Structure formats: C-alpha cells, structure tokens
C-alpha cells in the first residue's frame, strides 16, 4: 500500500471494517438490551469500601467506518466518598467518554464498553456498571449517579415547564410520593441552588431563563434525588466568567450539604485547582498522571502535565508568547504501541522508543506513566 500511514482508506477496506463493526456492536448491543437480567450477574465487590466509584482498566471503543477508535484505553482511578476528583485533558482525550461510560449514555451502537469494570458502591452492595443491561441501568441514572451537562442552553427540554422536568425525576425514582410532596421537593431544590422566587420559576419554561439560571436548574435536577455521585461534565464551559465563579461556589457549597462525591470534568486547570481533591490527567485515552491535587499541581511529573501547567496564563508574569505544547494528538485510529506523547515530548529518554510506559509510583497516591521516572521515581519533574 502506497499510502500506508495516512488517513486514506479504500472503499473496500471501509466496507470490510463496517461489516465487522456491525457484527461486534450487534453482539454487545444485544447483551445490553436484555431484560430481566438477574442481579447476580452484575453484582460485584468494591476493592476499597470507602470509594464510591472505581474504574478498573476500562476500555471504551468507538467502532467507526475508518477503524476502531480507542477513546478510553485502560483507564483506572477511584472516586473516594465525599471527595472531588478532577479530570483534565484536552478535547478528545476521553474524559467525557469515561463519564458517559459510567452512565451508559455512549452513542450506541458505535460506542461500546469493551472490557474493564466500573464498580459503583450503593452502600449495602456494589454493581459493575460495565456489565449492567440498560434496563437495570435506569434505576442508577439520576438516582445514584447524576450528571450535569456542559450546555445549559440546550440541555433542558424546551417544550416542558421547569417544574415538570424536575417533578419527573423525583416521581421516577420515588414512585410512592404524593403530588404535593413531589412539588414541594422540586421547589426546595430550586431554592437550594440559590434561585429566588422558586414558585415562579417552577411555572416557567426554559427559554424564559438565562444561561446561569438554567445551569442552576440542571444542577438542581442532578441533586434532587440525593445521588451518591455527581458527574459535572464541564459545567462552566458555556458560561461567562462571573457566572462560572458563582456556579463553582454553588457546587462546592452543595457538596458539603448533600455529602456526595463529584467527578469534575474540565479542561480548565483553574477550576480543578479550586475544586478538586484528586486530579487525573488524561491524554489520548489513557491516564498519564494522577494523584492528590496538591501533588499534581505543585510537583507535576509527566511532561504533558508540565506542558499543560506552562500553557496556562499566569498573572504578574510577562511572557512574549504563551507556551503551547508542540505537535498535535496522534490519530486515534491505530494508536502506536509506544508512549503516545513521545512525538511531542521535549524530554524523551532512551527507553521512550520502547513500549508504552508502565505506571510509576512517585508516592503512595501520586502515579505517573513515564519512562523518565522508571528508574528513579524521586527524580524532579523539570530536571
């Protein structure tokens, strides 16, 4: 083949791939669409009871017509109870796909969890979400795990009243509740997210509210069933800076009130620094560095993390040009079997030409995937 390593793909090749994809996705879909699956099939045990959520070697692939995209390729991390875990990385690095895998909201049939475990702690028992059929998943969504989406302007249904949309979640997960109780709870939720005139807002349609207000409603909707885990998928990206600060303040305040864990997905390091207890840095579908927020921020080890920190504007520092990491993310189809960051890395060592680097423990909590620290985990990041 002349154009071996370009994006070019022949029609025949594409047909063969899509045929194979259909075969694979059909099988996986069939498994997911089963009804009345015994609970024992997805019952599991947490490795550490103090965690709400454990991702264990999660693989989520997208079966596209040009080949399989490994959007999440062996991701493992934990979300401890009552803590905030921040997940950072550039667009397309798989941070949202990880959370969508947890909710089983992947764009099917092309997006599928291929292997790995997602252990979710329900208090008295634990489920492996990766094995759960959609039918059973419904009782988890919005109830045990809820999600705050990126786009407040479009994530509320335009044809239903705010009140109806809130009531719907409560009724769904609390079937025994009377109508007045449900309404009262919705109004309380609207009050809780700091909106005055809750009764008035209850009667409104989404288009009558501003972006910040809508995001508050989305947050109220996520909190209304007292979930154990809240996924905030770039909750402030679409908002202007003053509203951003308000929403973050609100999230922090609410976390204390309802004692939930938060998975905060963002590409804004400032937001992470402000909110997170733990930080996970992802690059091209894999975790490159994870640890306590203080460790990752004060002592970043992976060249990618260091690059991210450097490309953030800093007040009181004069530079001609803001730093940017050279090069771009490799083609997600047919990833190479060496460190994905190698071609952009300025700090390569000899070993980098070999296989993908294993995890190196810098401290008990601080883990980095880089050959530079393989022999000497205590080596400084900028040496």
């Amino acid at each position: 083949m002349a154009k071996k390593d370009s994006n070019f793909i022949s029609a025949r090749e594409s047909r063969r791939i899509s045929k194979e994809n259909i075969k694979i996705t059909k099988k996986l879909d069939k498994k997911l669409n089963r009804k009345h699956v015994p609970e024992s099939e997805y019952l599991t045990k947490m490795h550490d009871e103090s965690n709400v959520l454990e991702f264990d070697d999660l693989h989520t692939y997208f079966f596209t017509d040009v080949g399989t995209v490994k959007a999440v390729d062996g991701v493992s991390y934990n979300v401890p109870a009552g803590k905030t875990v921040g997940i950072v990385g550039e667009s397309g690095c798989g941070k949202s796909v990880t959370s969508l895998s947890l909710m089983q909201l992947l764009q099917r049939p092309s997006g599928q969890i291929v292997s790995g475990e997602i252990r979710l702690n329900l208090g008295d028992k634990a489920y492996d979400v990766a094995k759960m059929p959609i039918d059973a998943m419904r009782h988890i969504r919005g109830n045990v795990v809820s999600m705050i989406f990126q786009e407040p302007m479009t994530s509320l249904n335009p044809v239903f009243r705010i009140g109806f949309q809130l009531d719907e979640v409560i009724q769904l997960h609390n079937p025994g509740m009377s109508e007045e109780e449900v309404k009262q709870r919705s109004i309380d939720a609207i009050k809780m997210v700091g909106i005055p005139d809750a009764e008035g807002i209850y009667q409104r349609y989404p288009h009558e509210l501003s972006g910040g207000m809508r995001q508050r409603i989305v947050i109220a909707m996520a909190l209304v069933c007292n979930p154990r885990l809240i996924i905030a998928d770039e909750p402030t990206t679409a908002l202007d800076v003053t509203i951003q600060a308000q929403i973050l303040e609100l999230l922090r305040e609410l976390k204390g009130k309802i004692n939930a864990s938060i998975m905060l997905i963002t590409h804004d390091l400032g937001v992470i620094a402000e909110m997170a207890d733990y930080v996970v840095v992802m690059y091209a579908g894999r975790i490159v560095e994870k640890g306590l927020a203080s460790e990752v921020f004060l002592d970043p080890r992976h060249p990618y993390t260091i690059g991210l920190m450097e490309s953030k504007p800093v007040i009181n520092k004069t530079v001609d040009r803001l730093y940017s990491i050279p090069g771009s993310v490799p083609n997600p189809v047919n990833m190479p079997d060496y460190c994905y960051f190698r071609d952009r890395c300025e700090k390569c060592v000899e070993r980098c030409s070999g296989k993908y680097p294993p995890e190196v423990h810098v401290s008990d909590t601080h883990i980095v995937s880089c050959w530079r620290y393989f022999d000497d985990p205590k080596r400084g990041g900028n040496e």
Partner: protein
Amino acid sequence: MWKFIVRRVFLALIIVVLGSFIIYGVMRAMPTSFVEAQARQRAAASATTGGPTYKEWLDQLTKAYHMDTDVVTGFVNWLGNVIQGDFGTSWKYGVPVIQKFNDVIWYSVVLNCITIFLEIIICIPLGIQAARHQYSGFDYGITVFAMLCISLPTFFLATLLKYTFVIKLKWIEDLYGIVGRYHEQLSQGDQILDMMRHMILPVLTLAMLNIGGLTRYTRTNMLEVLNADYIRTARAKGLPERKVINKHAFRNTLIPLVSYMSYLIPSLFSGSMITETLYQIPGIGYIAYDAMVAGDLPFTMFYSMFGLILTQISLMLADIMYAVVDPRVRVN
C-alpha cells in the same frame, strides 16, 4: 393575541380578493372561451337552416354572459354578486355553482380524509422507528420504500394496483367508478359498504403517493431531535426509552410536523385530478378541471376562491397550532 388574529384576518381578506382578481384575469385571457365555443356550435347547428351566423351568435352570447365588459369591471361585478352571496350558475353544467360543488366535493373530501388519516397513522410511527434505528436494515428498507412511493407516477401505480387487486387477485370487482353495478338494488347499509369498497384502491393510490414525503420528513426531524442535548438529559434522568421517545422527543418533533400537516388541509378540498380521473370518481378535482378547460368562469372562480380561503385559514391555524405545541412562540 386578539390584535394578532384581527390583523391576520384582515391580511387574509386582502390576499383572497387580490388572488381571485388574478385568477379572473387569467380566466378572461384564456385562448379557449366558453362563449366562442358555444357560438361556434350553435352556428354550425343553425347553418343548414339559415339561422344566425357565428358572428351574430357570438355577439348575442357575449351579451348574455356579460362578457362584453373589460376585466376590471367584470371582476367588480362578479365580486359584487359574491358579496351578496350569489356565485352564479355554472356555464358548463347549467346548475348553480354551489349546488354542483356540493354534489361533487364530498367524494373528494371523504377520499382525502381517509387518505390523510392513513398517512398520519402510517408515516409518523414509521418515521420515528426509522430514526431510532438509523442506518439499520429497517431504516434502509423504509428509505427505499419511501423513495419508491415518491418516484412512482400516479397512472403507473394506479394501473399496477388495478392489475394486481382487480385482475389477478380479484379481491375487488370493479376497475373504476364509485358505485357497483347493482348499487341501486342494495339496502342503505350495503350501499355505503359498496362505496367504501370502491374507495379502497383510490385511497391506496393516494396514500402511497404521499407516504414517502411525510415518512422522510418525520424521520429527519426525529433524528435531529434525538441528537439534541435534552434527550441525553432525559436519558440521564433514568427515564425509560419509551418515555424518552414518546414524550420528550415526540413533543419536539411535533413542532415542524404541525406546520407540514396544516398544508394538507387545503389539499383535502382541492381534490386530486389524476387519481380521480383514473378511477372515474366524480370528485372536485375532475369536475373543476373540466370546468376550467371549458372556460366555465363562475365555477372556476368559486373553486379557486374556495381554495384561497382554505389556504388562508390553514395558515392561520398553523400559527395557532405552533403556539399550542411550542411554548417559545406563545404570545402573551
């Protein structure tokens, strides 16, 4: 709201008057004139007996049919009569326009009502299912079927249906007509059943012709809605898929569908000329075409004005229905 409606009604009135003036002008400018045709016929009949010549007949008839005025005066006279409720007598059929219209319109209305009802109950579920399983075998099947329906010419489809159901399978006894041979001898209930049987093929033809468009339209709109963020939100809430589709998605798909369907209202009454001709149903499409070709001014004018008014009403209805299904356009 009232101000809005009054303004719309006023605008509609102007459109109706101007529209009928244009039609009147076109009718007067047509190369085939009813008066000329009549004069030629009578002159030919009286030629042997030495009666009036063509020219004399023409003068006489032009006066009798009030065609000796110019277009504007003619239109004003016509409009004056219409305002007094007098649509005149059909030239071709020789009976009052309204009576003739009343005789034929119901065939078309019944035919089209059944067709539209069928279309809606078939197309919307099909479109939704196709959208839910995008690029599946079912979706491709629907697409092929829809394209087939859109591209088949009426006469071909009608012939095909007749050949299959009447000649080969013999499920239906007559090739055309609205009543069977022994219609008069049947009891009242059987008479209705007999007419119903004769409606089957025309309804099937009309429905198949229109199914493609509406199915594709529903599918496209449903797909757009299904990819919206609020559908993901609905799923993230834990709603069962059935509720997500039937409630959250369908309510939003309804918005474009309402405007599409309001255009179907005038088509209820406008008849379908080709299908009616092929099955020899004396509906309005068939009769109005004949009247127009013959230059029957009163009948054509009434028919077009009726269509104009209906179109205006349906447009207004669409505006109101929009407000019903979409809270964003509600006027306070």
